[in-house]
C-alpha cells in the first residue's frame, strides 16, 4: 500500500510514518520541514498555502497514493483563532479534497478526544460525536469541525476513520513531556487539585500502532471515530511522577486548587489570544480541566474494531522514557 502521512515532522506523525514504513508500505510524507526519517519520501509544503500554486505540493504528494493519514494540524493551547481555523479546518478540507481527487481509498484523520469534551470529567465513556459547540478552546473546536468534515466525506470508495489519541507522550516529545520536565526542574509545576483524578494517556508507540491499525481496518470500520489510549488510567499525580521520575527530576509537590487554576487559566487564555505567537502560556482553562478532572475512556470498541491492543504498558513506557533521558546524559 502507498501511504501519505501529513505532519510527519511532528512527534506522533514521525512515529506513525515510521510504523507504517516498517510494515513494508511505501510511505510519502508531507510537511514544511524534513521528517528526519529514512526510507520515506519527504515532500515539503503546506496544507494552507494554496494561493499561488493551487495544491502544487499537496497534489504531487497525494498522487498515486492508496491511503492518507492526516496528522498535520496546529496543536497549541492558545494562539490566533484564525490560524487554528485555517490550518485545522481549512487544511483538512484541502487534504480531503486532494485525496478524493487523487483517487485515494482510505483516509485516517487523526483527531483528539477534546473534540467531544465539554469540560466535565470523563469516566469510561466511549467516543462521543465531535461537537464544535461544546469543545473547549480554539484547538478542540477546530479539530471537532475538521473531524466532522472528514467523516462527512466518508463513502464506499473513500473510507474515512477518525482516531483520537489521548495525551500522547514518549521519548522525544516536546509538547507534553519536555514541558512537564522543564517546569518540574524549575519548580514551576504544581499539582492541580489533589492529583487523584484518573487520566488515561497514550504511549507514542501505541498511538502509532493504533493509527496504523485504523488504516488496516478502514475497510470494515470506516465512518467512525475511535478514542485511542493505553487503557491504563492513573491518578494524574502518578503520571506526572512517572514522567518526572524517568527524567530524574522531583515530582510536583505543591498544589493549586483546581478551581483557582481554571479561573486563572481562563484569564491567561484571554490575554494570550490578544498577543499570540509569543510562547505557550503557563496555564489555560482547557489544560486546567484536563489536569484536574478524570479523563479515561471505554476502549472495548476501539480494540475490537481496530483489532489492536497497546503493546507498551504505562510502566514499560516510563522505563523507555528513563532510558531515553539516561542516554542523553
Amino acid at each position, binding site marked *: 500500500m502507498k501511504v501519505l502521512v501529513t505532519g510527519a515532522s511532528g512527534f506522533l506523525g514521525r512515529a506513525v510514518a515510521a510504523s507504517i514504513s516498517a510494515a513494508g508500505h511505501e510511505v510519502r510524507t508531507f510537511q514544511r520541514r524534513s521528517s528526519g526519517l529514512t526510507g520515506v519520501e519527504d515532500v515539503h509544503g503546506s496544507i494552507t498555502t494554496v494561493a499561488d500554486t493551487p495544491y502544487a505540493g499537496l497534489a504531487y504528494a497525494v498522487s498515486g497514493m492508496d491511503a492518507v493519514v492526516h496528522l498535520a494540524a496546529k496543536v497549541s493551547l492558545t494562539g490566533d483563532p484564525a490560524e487554528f481555523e485555517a490550518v485545522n479546518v481549512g487544511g483538512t478540507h484541502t487534504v480531503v479534497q486532494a485525496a478524493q481527487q487523487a483517487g485515494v481509498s482510505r483516509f485516517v484523520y487523526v483527531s483528539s478526544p477534546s473534540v467531544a469534551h465539554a469540560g466535565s470529567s470523563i469516566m*469510561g465513556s466511549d467516543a462521543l460525536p465531535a461537537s464544535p459547540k461544546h469543545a473547549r478552546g480554539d484547538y478542540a473546536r477546530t479539530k471537532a469541525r475538521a473531524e466532522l468534515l472528514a467523516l462527512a466525506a466518508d463513502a464506499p470508495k473513500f473510507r474515512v476513520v477518525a482516531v483520537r489519541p489521548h495525551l500522547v507522550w514518549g521519548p522525544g516529545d516536546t509538547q507534553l513531556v519536555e514541558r512537564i520536565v522543564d517546569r518540574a526542574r524549575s519548580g514551576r509545576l504544581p499539582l492541580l487539585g489533589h492529583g*487523584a483524578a484518573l487520566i488515561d494517556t497514550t504511549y507514542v508507540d501505541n498511538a502509532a500502532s493504533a493509527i496504523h491499525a485504523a488504516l488496516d481496518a478502514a475497510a470494515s470500520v470506516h465512518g467512525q471515530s475511535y478514542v485511542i489510549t493505553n487503557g491504563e*488510567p492513573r491518578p494524574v499525580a502518578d503520571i506526572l511522577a512517572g514522567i518526572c521520575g524517568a527524567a530524574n527530576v522531583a515530582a510536583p509537590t505543591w498544589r493549586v486548587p483546581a478551581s483557582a487554576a481554571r479561573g486563572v487559566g481562563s484569564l491567561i487564555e484571554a490575554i494570550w489570544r490578544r498577543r499570540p505567537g509569543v510562547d505557550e502560556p503557563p496555564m489555560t482553562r482547557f489544560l486546567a480541566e484536563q489536569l484536574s478532572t478524570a479523563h479515561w475512556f*471505554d476502549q*472495548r470498541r476501539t480494540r475490537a474494531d481496530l483489532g489492536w491492543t497497546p503493546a507498551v504498558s504505562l510502566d514499560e513506557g516510563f522505563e523507555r522514557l528513563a532510558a531515553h533521558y539516561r542516554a542523553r546524559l
Partner: protein
Amino acid sequence: MTDTRTSRRLSRTVSAPAALPPVGLAGLDPEWSQLVEVAESNSTGELRHGWHLLDNGPQLDALGVIAVGTILCVHGNPTWSYLWRSLLSSATDAAASGAPAWRVIAVDQLDMGFSERTGGFRPLARRVQDLGDLTDALDLAGPVITLGHDWGGVVSLGWAVDHPELLAGVMLLNTAVHQCAGVPIPAPLRLALGRGILGPATVATPAFLATTLALAHPSLSNEVKRGYRAPYLTSARRGGIGGFVADIPVALSHESRPELDRIAEGARALTVPTLLLWGPRDPIFSDRYLDDLVERMPHAQVHRFEGAGHLLAEDADYAAAALLWLGDAVSGSEAASSAAPLSLVELAETARGGSQAAWEVAGTHPLWYYLDELQCSDEIALVDMQPAAPRTVSWRLLSRRVRQIAAGLVFIGVKPGDRVSLLVPPSADLTAVLYACVRIGAIVVVADAGLGLPGLTRAVRGARPDCVIGAAPGLMAARALGWPGRKISTARFPAPMAALLSIEHTLAELTRLGQARLDAGDALPTEPAPTDAAAVLFTSGSTGPAKGVVYTHGQLSAVSNALFLQYGVGVGTGLVAGFAPFALLGPALGARSVTPDMDVTAPKTLTATAVAAAVAAIDATVVFLSPAALVNVVATAGALTPTDHAALAGVQRFLSAGAPISESLLTQAAALMPQATAHTPYGMTEGLLMADITLEGIRAAAASVSMPCRTDAAAHDGELAPSAASKPETVVPASSTSGDGETAPIAMPTATTVNPAGGVCVGASTQTTRIRISALDASGASVGELSEQPDVTGEIVVSAPHVKDHYDRLWLTERASRRGAVPGERWHRTGDVGHLDSAGRLWVEGRMPHVIVTADGVVTPVGPEQRIETLPDVARAAFIGVGPVGTQQQVAVIETVPPASRMHRASVSLAAAVRSAVGSPVAAVLVVPGLPTDIRHNSKIDRSRLSRWATGILSGGRWVKP
C-alpha cells in the same frame, strides 16, 4: 365528624368537559390519551360523561402484537392517570422486545385529571359504577388485572368484586379497604377533614395536592410535579379532590361506609393471584392497612419497598415488579404456580396439620420435643452464670416454666401466627419465653442491636409484632421509637414506670396466669406443624435495609439437626452458649446449656476464667463463642488456674461464629482447649451452617496454595468479610455483638488457591447441605446453570433442609433468591461469589455486587485483597471497581501499618508494590485511616459504598470521608 353530607361543605363544583392533557408533560406520550363518552348507568335522563384515559392499545396494534390481557389502572386522590405513565411505557417496551404484551388502560376518574368535571358529588358506590360503565363502554374483554393506588385501590377492588368473569388478577399499591371502628384515621386526613379546613385545603388552594407530591422519596423533579399539577391548576378543577377527601368514610354513619364494607368483604372472596406492592414510609396508609389487606387476601404476594412511601409509583420501580409478576402469573412459573409461595418442598403437603405424622415426614423433632421428653427430669437443662451465684434450671423446671408462660400468653390473647418480638438478653428467661412462643405457634421476631437503633426500629416495625417481650433497655427503646405491639416486661417495674413504658404484663404475671389456666385444666393449643412459620430473623443490613427472614418450625428443627450432625450436640451434651442463636437451640437438642457470665452487649468482656467456670459448671464438652469474646478469652488466659485449665481440657469442640477471626487467634484459643477441635462455619441469616472448616482444614487449605498463610475471615449474613487482622497481631472488631439475635459466622484462612481467583476457604458443605455455583458471565451476572464443577467462579447457591423459608414481605427479593432453582428443589442464592475446588471445598471470593467487571473480564475482590494484605505496609485492603460496568478500573483502598492520619493517594512506591502484588492493572491506590465497616461486626467492608466514594475522588472531586 359524623356529618354524612360532608360534600355540602364544599363549594359547588363547576362543570367542564373532558379534555386532552397539554403536550409536553414529562414521561407522558400523547399517543396514549383518549377521550371516551360514557352513559351513566341507573341515571335518569340519559346522563353521559366524558372520560380521559391513557391506553397503549393502539401502540400494541401498531407493533402487531396481541395483548395477553389488560391492566386496568385506577389512580387515587389527588393524582391522575399520569401516575401510571411508567407502566404504560414499560409494558409497550416489553411488548416491543418480544415479551408478553399487556394492554394498559389508566383512567382519570370523573371530576379528576382531565376527565369531565361533572358538577356533582360522586360517592364511592357511584365511582365503582362509573368505572364499570366505562369498561362496558370500552367493551373491555378479559382477562383483566386491576391495579389501584390510594382510594383508587378501593375503586379498583370494587370493580374487581363486581366483575369476576373478567378478573384475572389484582394488584394494589398503598391503599386501604377498611377502617377499624375506634381506630383513628390517619392524622393528615383527620386534619384535612377538619371543619373549615376541607374546602380551603383541598379545593381553594393546591395545599392537599402539594402535600401529596411532597411525600415522594426522593423528591419529585419539577417536571414531574408539573405533570401532576397539570389538571388541577385552578380551584374550579380541584373540586374532585375535595370530594374524594369528603368521601372518606370516617364514621360508621358515612354514606359510603356500606359500599366500603361491601368491597372489603368482597375482597375476602377473591381467589385470583394478588400482588401488594407497598411503600412503608406512608403517613396515610401505614403498615396496618397492609396487614388488613393480607388478612383479607392471605394468598397475596407482598413486596415492601423499604425507603419508599405513599407515592410508591414514583419511589420504586413498581412497573418492572408488576410486569415480572404478571409474567410469572401468565407463564404459570414460580410464584404463580404455588398459591402459597411460602410452602416447603421438602415438607410436602402431607406434613401439614397432623403433628406427629408431619414431624415424621420432616425427619426431625419439634423444638419442644425434649421439653416434653425430659419434663420429669431433675437433670440440669440450663445454667446462668450470674455474678452472685449460678442460677440452675432443671429440665423439669424449664419444661414447667415454658408451659406456664405459653398458657399465660394464650390467656392474654396471643394466638398462633401472632408475632412476638424478643428483646431479651440471652438467659434462662429468654430461653423459656422463646420456647413458650414457638410451642403455641407464635412467631418469634429476633432483631439485634447490631442493626443500630434506626435499623432495628425499621426492622421491628416492618416485622409488625403483635407483642414485644423485653428487658428494660429494649422496652425503653420500644417506647421511645414507637414500636408497635403490646409490651411485656421480663422484670417488674414500679407502676408509674410500667405505665410510662405501656407495659401490660410482666413475665412473672404471665407465669402465674398461665399456671392458673393449667390448674383449671386448660390445655395448650394444638402444636404447630412443621410448615408453620416459627421465627423471623433479620439480616445484618450491612448492604441495605435489614431483611426479615422467615423460618418454619421444620426448618428451625433442621438447624438444630445440623448442629447435631456437624458438632455432635445432642442429649446430654454440655454446651457453653457464648453465641446466642445457636446456643438457644440447646434445649431443642436435649443438651444442657450454660450462659457464661458476661455483659452480652460487650462480648469482649468475657474472660477466660468465666469460660472455664461455665465449662466446669456443667462439664461442658462443646463451647460456642463469638470472635470478639474469643479475643478477650485469649487475652485473659494468664489468669487461668490449674483447675480452670483442667476444666477446659475436657472441651472436645469449640466453635467461633459470628464474624471474622484470624488463624492465629484460633490457634491460640485451641491451645487453651488442647483436646478440642476448632471449627468455624460458613453461613448467613438465610442459611445458617452451610459449610464448616476446622483449624486443621484451614491449615491444609493454606498448604494447598503457594501464598504465605494469612488468616482471614469470612462470611456472615452472606457477606464476606475481608480480613480483620492487622499485622502482625490480630485485632478483632471491638463492637462485634454477641449476637443476641441471629447469626452465622465464620472465620477462615486466607490464602490463594491454585485457582487464580483466590478466596477464603470455608470448607466443605455440612452434611445436609448442597452447594453449587452459578457461573458469572462476562458482565458479572450469575446466569450459569447450578453446577458443582470445580474452579468455576460464580454465585454460591445453597440448598439444605435448614435454609430459610422465605423473605418477609419481599416478594421480589424472594423471587430473585430462588432464580434458576431446579423445580421441586429449594435453593437459595447467597449473593456471595466463590468457587468449589476439586476437593469439594468452597472458596469465597466476595459479594455479587462487589464483583469488578473490567474490559478484560470479571475480577472478584478477595483474591487481590489477600495478595495486597501480604505487603508489610498494609493492614487491610478493599478492592473495588470504579467506572461503568464492563470497563471498570480496579482500585485498591487500604489501611496502612501504622494507620494513616488522613486520606491520601498512596506513594508511588506503595502503589507500585500494590500493583505488583495484585498482578493485574490497578488504576489507583488510596490510603484511608480506616475502612468503613458494618455496625454489627465492624469487619465487613461495604465495597459498594467505597466504590461510590472512590469514584468521586478519582473523578477530581473533593476528599470526603468514605
